[in-house]
């Protein structure tokens, strides 16, 4: 039974409308997301690989070459079984850098727009036979359905017209559902769901045809088995062994086709939104291919049984005609239509993207800087390219005039795409490869393929090289296989040799490291000529137009969760990379790279980006095995050690960028690592910024003690150390010594209280005398009448009162000294007066041995000090000297000026200090006195005060030989004049 053209057209329209409906409902969300986002939908959408070759061509292969038809499915399935070796590394690159096509990927790796243009042109050329194959399958099917016995019988207008109409509907579909999202990172849900639907339809139709073959053509499975046993022709064909090179060539071309062909590449990478989907595809796709291959043998056997006149590829239609069943014919036609339309849609979509990104945009046909129109222009350009490509495929099909079988056309296209495999494999695995090698190999391999495979098959024309080659091979039947292998060999040889002999540019080397899965990427920390994220829009505006630049900046900021005010160099670098990746999804990597390089150039120099390397290592640690895993574990251990050290560690790069900020640093400063890592030192909050900046430029490598005043809390004391690495990084160590300082202060206060306690008895006695005197004088006053006597007595009382006041003042002064935690006020102090005051205070202690104090200091000398603190120093030093002396003791204080410094010697003729204790006397709790008489804090206090005053103290002992060797403490202070005030 035959169909009229109107019926066929209606059939095509109904089927494609169904496809439209599925895509439309998926895009609108009517089909729930749990279905459209399900991994099974992604896996089924990959079935786009199985075009008319799978629905028709493979039956022809099975008929002629038996089991060898499985190579088609096995080659494609193997790509997914070995996904971790090739697909996952490529998916990583594709997702991170927004590379949606093979040309994008190779341009990103080889950093050359020429590579993109070459790949695109070559791919269009190689894909023309593939598009023609799909159109021919539909056209021939229409021809057969219309009642012609053989497609070559009548190459009239009718079936070609239906094929053209089908192409036009497909153009509309591709335009409506394939260009919905401009950026390659957004999934075209409608397209993916529709492709999955087509895969299901294809599988269901072929499975139904298998059942028809088994139960319609044969009388069930048993009959088929019996027929097989009794049919020597079937046995011969099923077990026919191809020459080894033919088998390998077939396997290789189908393997390459399953990853290099633009439609499968697009579905695999551009439409993937989750790695887990690809992981499901590693077993799901081989399973789908196996299910799809199950009907092939029964259909081939049914064809042999029926012995129909049609080409074996159209056995389904032959079964329909033989059984006089329109339903069977319709199912066979649906299988062909679903397979062909899916491949045409996605292949042209992917090719259109490639043409746009690598031919149209680099040639500057579109003015990107024109504001507000980029997105619209890109969309229309893409649509126009889809239409042009589908129509080019149709014209190519027309030019063939049906001379070639589907298998021949398929093999030409597959062997052409095989030539892209070396470049693709080199992307993650061979960092030494360069663009010159790639182009040389590609042109060599493709040139040979064109003259020995493409032209002879599609044009029937054998150029001189082809004649020479076929004469050399001798076996004309296997010329395809030999030519394919030879073309690949030429390609690989040229690629390797030229890559090794020519220089790889620096840009390519960096891209190779990014792409390489073998080497650790060594990203460089480069500086950008920008200070905030907002400036990106201004820089990009000349190239993209103001509105587009703003929109792209907002998109990148939103993806990275950064604010417009972001100024960290690390964040700005990430933002630059993100904008380039987003533009790559929109305009292709070549144009995107060119725009970003031109608008936001990177300053020369830079060092390794340790943060990024660490992040990469952390992200991929589960992949490390053996020695690499051990090294990573070691790295983590050292990292943890550095992080948990109770000392703050901060590492600054040579450009001032903060590379490390450990937990103690966070505790000390209250600044989180996430907020400052990757920032410049200037981004640190005060007072830490000034402190670290000053210390970094400080000539000394350590500051033992410095006070840090924070607005939010009490002041802290820290000690700082620094060291410089060979690479020029500065490592700062910050130790929080606040607790130690507070304890020391407390101890010193206790020492002062102890001194006051010791002085108390003497003070009481000293005050007692004038008080007694005042009492007597007051009694006398009571009876005195003579005004002169009254006046004299009152004067005496006042004198005694002044004495008491002076004693009390001295004591109060002493007790206050050092207790204040406020700012130390340095001012000129009279040295001699200070020594006198100290001697006076000590003389109050009646229990102490009475020795002679001599103050030889120059009365005119002024030192820069805090008078109360200096008094405390002398009280301690003179008190110690007195305690060291016997009754004949003599303590002398003398001063000298040396330049702007004043040296003060405090000498005694006491017992001296043992040599073993000399190095420790300034440490707390070290004393030469008997237990209970000294706290051991006096000299520690003196040392601390002298440091605060900006002076120093040195010890010399013994001064002489003999019984009383004596001791000398030499103080050094700055000389001062009246009128100067200094603050520390």
């Amino acid at each position, binding site marked *: 039974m035959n169909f009229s053209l109107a019926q066929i057209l209606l059939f095509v329209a109904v089927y494609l409308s169904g496809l439209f409906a599925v895509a439309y409902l998926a895009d609108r969300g009517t089909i729930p997301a749990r279905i459209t986002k399900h991994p099974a939908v992604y896996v089924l959408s990959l079935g786009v690989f199985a075009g008319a070759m799978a629905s028709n061509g493979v039956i022809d292969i099975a008929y002629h070459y038996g*089991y060898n038809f*499985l190579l088609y499915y*096995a080659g494609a*399935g193997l790509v*997914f*079984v*070995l*996904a*971790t*070796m090739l697909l*996952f*590394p490529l*998916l*990583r690159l594709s*997702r*991170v850098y927004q590379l949606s096509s093979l040309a994008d990927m190779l341009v990103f790796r080889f950093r050359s727009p020429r590579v993109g243009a070459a790949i695109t042109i070559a791919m269009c050329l190689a894909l023309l036979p593939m598009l023609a194959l799909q159109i021919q399958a539909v056209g021939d099917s229409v021809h057969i359905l219309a009642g012609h016995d053989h497609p070559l019988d009548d190459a009239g207008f009718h079936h070609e017209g239906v094929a053209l109409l089908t192409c036009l509907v497909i153009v509309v579909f591709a335009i409506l559902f394939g260009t919905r999202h401009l950026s390659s990172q957004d999934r075209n849900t409608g397209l993916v769901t529709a492709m999955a639907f087509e895969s299901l339809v294809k599988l269901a139709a072929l499975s139904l045809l298998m059942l028809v073959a088994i139960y319609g053509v044969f009388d069930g499975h048993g009959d088929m*088995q019996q027929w*097989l*046993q009794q049919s020597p022709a079937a*046995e011969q064909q*099923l*077990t026919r*062994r191809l020459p080894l090179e033919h088998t390998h060539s077939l396997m290789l071309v189908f393997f390459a086709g399953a990853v290099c062909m633009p439609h499968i590449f697009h579905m695999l990478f551009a439409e993937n939104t*989750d*790695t*887990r989907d690809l*992981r499901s595809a*590693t*077993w799901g796709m*081989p*399973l789908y291919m*196996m299910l799809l291959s*199950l009907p092939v*043998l029964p259909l081939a056997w049914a064809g042999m049984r029926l012995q129909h006149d049609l080409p074996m590829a159209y056995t389904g239609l032959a079964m329909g005609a033989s059984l006089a069943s329109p339903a069977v014919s319709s199912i066979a036609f649906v299988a062909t239509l679903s397979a062909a339309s899916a491949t045409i849609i996605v292949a042209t979509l992917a090719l259109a993207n490639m043409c746009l990104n690598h031919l149209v945009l680099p040639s500057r046909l579109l003015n990107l800087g024109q504001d507000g129109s980029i997105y619209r222009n890109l969309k229309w350009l893409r649509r126009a390219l889809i239409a042009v490509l589908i129509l080019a495929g149709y014209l190519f099909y027309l030019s063939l005039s049906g001379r070639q079988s589907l298998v021949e056309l398929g093999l030409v296209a597959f062997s052409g795409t095989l030539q892209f495999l070396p470049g693709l494999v080199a992307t993650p*695995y061979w960092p030494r490869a360069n663009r010159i090698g790639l182009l040389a190999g590609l042109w060599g391999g493709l040139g040979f393929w064109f003259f020995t495979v493409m032209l002879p098959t599609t044009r029937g024309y054998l150029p001189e090289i082809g004649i020479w080659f076929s004469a050399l091979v001798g076996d004309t039947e296997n010329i395809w296989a030999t030519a394919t292998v030879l073309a690949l060999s030429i390609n690989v040889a040229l690629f390797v040799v030229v890559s090794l002999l020519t220089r790889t540019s620096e840009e390519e080397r960096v891209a190779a490291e990014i792409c390489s*899965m*073998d080497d650790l990427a060594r990203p460089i920390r480069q500086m950008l000529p920008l200070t905030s994220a907002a400036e990106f829009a201004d820089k990009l505006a000349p190239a993209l137009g103001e509105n587009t630049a703003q929109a792209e900046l907002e998109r990148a900021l939103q993806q990275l969760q950064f604010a417009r005010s972001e100024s960290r160099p690390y964040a700005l670098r990430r933002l630059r990379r993100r904008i380039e990746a987003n533009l790559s999804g929109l305009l292709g990597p070549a144009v995107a790279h060119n725009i970003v390089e031109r608008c936001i150039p990177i300053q020369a120099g830079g060092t390794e980006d340790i943060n990024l390397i660490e992040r990469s290592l952390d*992200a*991929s640690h*589960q*992949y490390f*095995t053996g020695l690499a895993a051990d090294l990573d574990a070691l790295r983590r251990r050292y990292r943890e050690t550095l992080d948990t050290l109770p000392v703050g560690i901060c590492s600054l790069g040579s450009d001032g960028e903060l590379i490390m900020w450990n937990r103690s640093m966070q505790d000390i400063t209250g600044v989180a690592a996430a907020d400052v890592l990757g920032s410049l030192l200037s981004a640190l909050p005060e007072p830490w910024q000034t402190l670290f900046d000053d210390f970094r430029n400080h000539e000394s490598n350590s500051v033992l003690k410095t006070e840090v005043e924070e607005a939010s809390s009490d002041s802290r004391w820290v000690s700082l150390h620094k060291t410089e690495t060979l690479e020029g990084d500065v490592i700062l160590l910050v130790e929080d010594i606040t607790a130690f300082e507070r304890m020391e202060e407390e101890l010193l206060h206790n020492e002062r209280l102890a001194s006051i306690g010791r002085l108390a008895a003497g003070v009481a006695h000293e005050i007692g005398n004038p008080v007694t005197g005042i009492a007597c004088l007051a009694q006398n006053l009571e009876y005195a009448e003579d005004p002169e006597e009254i006046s004299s007595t009152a004067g005496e009382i006042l004198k005694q009162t002044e004495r008491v006041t002076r004693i009390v003042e001295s004591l109060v002064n002493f007790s206050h000294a050092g207790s204040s935690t406020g700012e130390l006020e340095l001012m000129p102090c009279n040295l001699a007066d200070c020594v006198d005051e100290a001697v006076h205070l000590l003389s109050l202690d009646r229990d102490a041995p009475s020795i002679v104090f001599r103050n030889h200091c120059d009365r005119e000398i002024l030192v820069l000090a805090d008078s109360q603190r200096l008094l405390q120093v002398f009280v301690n030093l003179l008190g110690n000297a007195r305690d060291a002396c016997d009754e004949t003791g003599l303590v002398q204080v003398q001063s000298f000026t040396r330049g702007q410094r004043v040296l003060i010697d405090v000498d005694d003729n006491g017992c001296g200090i043992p040599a073993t204790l000399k190095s420790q006397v300034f440490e707390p709790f070290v004393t030469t006195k008997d237990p209970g008489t000294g706290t051991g804090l006096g000299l520690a206090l003196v040392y601390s005060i002298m440091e605060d005053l900006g002076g120093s103290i040195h010890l010399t002992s013994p001064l002489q030989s003999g019984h009383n060797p004596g001791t000398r403490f030499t103080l050094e202070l700055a000389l001062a004049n009246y009128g100067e005030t200094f603050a520390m």
Partner: protein
Amino acid sequence: MYISRTLMLGLVLALIAFPVLTDWLTSDFSAWYRPYIVWTLLILFTWWGNRSRQTDEL
């Protein structure tokens, strides 16, 4: 190179078993289902090798 050990082991085994396997596949003409048995085992092997990854680890 991030290649799972299961996959490497599988490849080595496949290489070793390849001659025996092809002989077995083509020894009995009527047992046309044999390639599908091997294929099913391969699918199970691949599923097993990829079963543990639960996160989008790119």
